[in-house]
């Protein structure tokens, strides 16, 4: 299970980082979102993988580590705020700069 989880994270991260390195704002935002999925899952994994035991007092004998869950929750919310912000900013930049290249210039180039 752990290996599968780790490999999935690896794939998510790889996809996220690859998209991050593209030249269009929208694609970069896709990449950021994937990356943040990966990171949230990673942070979540720091509490180890426990099935069928939500951290609710009295529900089960032992329970999953609640702290990483709370951290991830905070991270998700912050990530949401940031995504909303960056999406609108990308839109603003695209409208103002008349293209949606991440640099707002040389629109037909993949820049080093």
């Amino acid at each position, binding site marked *: 299970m752990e290996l599968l989880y780790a490999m999935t994270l690896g794939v998510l991260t790889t996809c996220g980082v690859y998209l991050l390195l593209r030249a269009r704002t929208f694609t970069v935002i896709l990449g950021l979102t994937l990356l943040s999925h990966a990171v949230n899952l990673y942070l979540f994994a720091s509490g180890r993988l426990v099935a*069928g035991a*939500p951290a*609710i007092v009295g*529900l*089960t004998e032992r329970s999953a580590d609640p702290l990483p869950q709370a951290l991830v929750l905070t991270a998700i919310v912050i990530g949401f705020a940031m995504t909303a912000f960056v999406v609108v900013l990308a839109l603003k930049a695209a409208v103002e700069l008349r293209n949606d290249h991440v640099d707002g210039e040389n629109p037909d180039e993949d820049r080093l």
Partner: protein
Amino acid sequence: MIAIVIPIAMTLFAVAALLNLYRLAIGPDIVDRILALDTLMINSIALIVLADLRMGLGVLFELALLIALMGFVGTVAMSKYLLRGDVIE
């Protein structure tokens, strides 16, 4: 009996989800993909409910409810986007 049925049902729903993903992947039109995603959401509600049944904890219903709500909102948003070119106007 239920303990036997649940995995079977889950498998059936999983196959259904796979079929949805197949449609999502091949399209051909974006509307097909939206439809596939909508169906996927609905099927995943069932999967969640079954998983909850299997655990016997009853903590995932809200999730099912929210998937239903969000699936609806998402589908409407995307359709509206295709229909009008925007979502809120």
